[in-house]
């Protein structure tokens, strides 16, 4: 449970997030919508002049208190992995581990295993690929045993290929960790694949927030490609149940059928959908 009320000169942000104990809450919006600022304020990396922030009953910011970043029980994944260049991969992973009271080496091993970086531990960050670097960055954030994981567009700096290399790890993270995750993104694709809850932001305001089914219609998808992928992903998640998929997508049943027909004969993603529909 987290409550935010933030005021800057220019805009106000009001948000009551009833976050489940686990699962991904995506914060979606175009650049300049204030989503990264929101995340930085939650972490304490920035200070909203008028702010109120409470996490699971604990005050992180109000009129009197401002809990500094290093005392907040969170993990943060930046857009660029930002690994410490003077430390090895293991040194990076241990940096937070040795400073966090909650952390245990068991958690580190789990993070290493989850992100598949066991063979990279002795390397220096400049010997890693972009995708490997970001996986280490995510494991480093997990190693401090955070009670809340904040991720700021962790895939945005990567190309398509690397993105698809990491997405499966994020899905695994989502499935196996007992941890609420706030995931900032501007990619509908990532929302559909990872999110349980969605906060849609525009110009520093919250346009909509709730379960994926309730909020997906607020995401407009400019590209048919993205749209097709969204439809196929949603179909996958509802095991091919078309009427439920239509509800999730916020379109009526006949529109969905029309779109599926339109996607036919284009090959590629279509095969997946055919299999889903049986």
């Amino acid at each position, binding site marked *: 449970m987290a409550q935010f009320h933030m005021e800057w000169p220019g805009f106000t942000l009001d948000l009551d997030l009833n976050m489940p104990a686990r699962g991904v809450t995506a914060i979606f919006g175009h650049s300049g919508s204030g989503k990264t600022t929101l995340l930085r304020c939650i972490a304490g990396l920035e200070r909203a002049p008028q702010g109120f922030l409470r996490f699971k009953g604990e005050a992180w910011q109000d009129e009197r208190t401002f809990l500094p970043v290093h005392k907040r029980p969170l993990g943060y994944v930046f857009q*660029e992995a930002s690994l410490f260049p003077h430390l090895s991969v293991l040194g990076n992973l241990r940096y937070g581990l040795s400073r966090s009271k909650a952390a245990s080496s068991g958690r580190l091993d789990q993070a290493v295993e989850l992100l598949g970086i066991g063979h990279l531990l002795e390397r220096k960050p400049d010997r890693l690929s972009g995708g490997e670097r970001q996986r280490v960055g995510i494991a480093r954030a997990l190693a401090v045993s955070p009670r809340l994981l904040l991720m700021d567009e962790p895939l945005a700096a990567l190309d398509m290929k690397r993105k698809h290399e990491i997405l499966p790890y994020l899905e695994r993270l989502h499935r196996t960790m007992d941890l609420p995750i706030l995931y900032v993104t501007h990619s509908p694709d990532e929302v559909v694949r990872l999110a349980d809850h969605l906060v849609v932001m525009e110009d520093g305001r919250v346009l909509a927030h709730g379960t994926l089914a309730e909020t997906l219609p607020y995401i407009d998808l400019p590209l048919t490609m993205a749209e097709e992928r969204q439809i196929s992903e949603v179909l996958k998640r509802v095991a091919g149940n078309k009427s439920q998929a239509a509800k999730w997508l916020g379109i009526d049943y006949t529109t969905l059928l029309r779109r599926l027909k339109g996607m036919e004969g284009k090959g590629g993603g279509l095969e997946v959908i055919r299999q889903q529909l049986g």
Partner: protein
Amino acid sequence: MLLTDSDLQSIWLTIRLATIVTLILLMTGTPIAWWLARSRSRWKGPIGAVVALPLVLPPSVLGFYLLLAMGPRGPVGHLTRVLGIEPLPFTFWGLVLASVFYSLPFMVQPLQNAFESIGDRFLEVAATLRASPLDAFFTVALPLARSGFLTASVLTFSHTVGEFGVVLMIGGNIPGVSRVASVQIYDHVEAMEYGEAHRMAAVMLIFSFMVLLALYANRPNARKV
């Protein structure tokens, strides 16, 4: 023997002076450079200008003001009298104090550049990994600014070795106390001892070249992160 005893004595004195000044400035210049690199205070401009003053001020001007400050009527002179220590002018420690001011920008500016080039991101990462600001300074900022520390120390040391005007104003020309290498050369020339002056000058020239060579040869490696 190429160099006389008094030549060797002045070289030894110079090395001692430059080492002590470099150590003092490492401890005092680092927080100043850190503050200048990170602060958004409106005092940043004025303080930065004061630190840079010795770069443009004639050493005799700086030496003159320092002499007044250390003299019996100056604030430093007053302090030394209250504390019961001997007045600083014409002593080794007076020379140290003057050199600290004179070499300050050579320590602060390379360090400030090094700290600025680290940026905010790594310190933010450290904070999200539970490191307090002081902890992050020692475990992230210092190691990442390593090449800056090398540059700053070498420049400070060699600049102190090369000073002349401030030494004459503060320390005078007392053998074993304040007669540093540059003053020794001046004395040799004054006394028409060109042979001795040549040898001392050659030692200084070779030293300076070696220092700069070490510094520039190190650059490309230091750049690689």
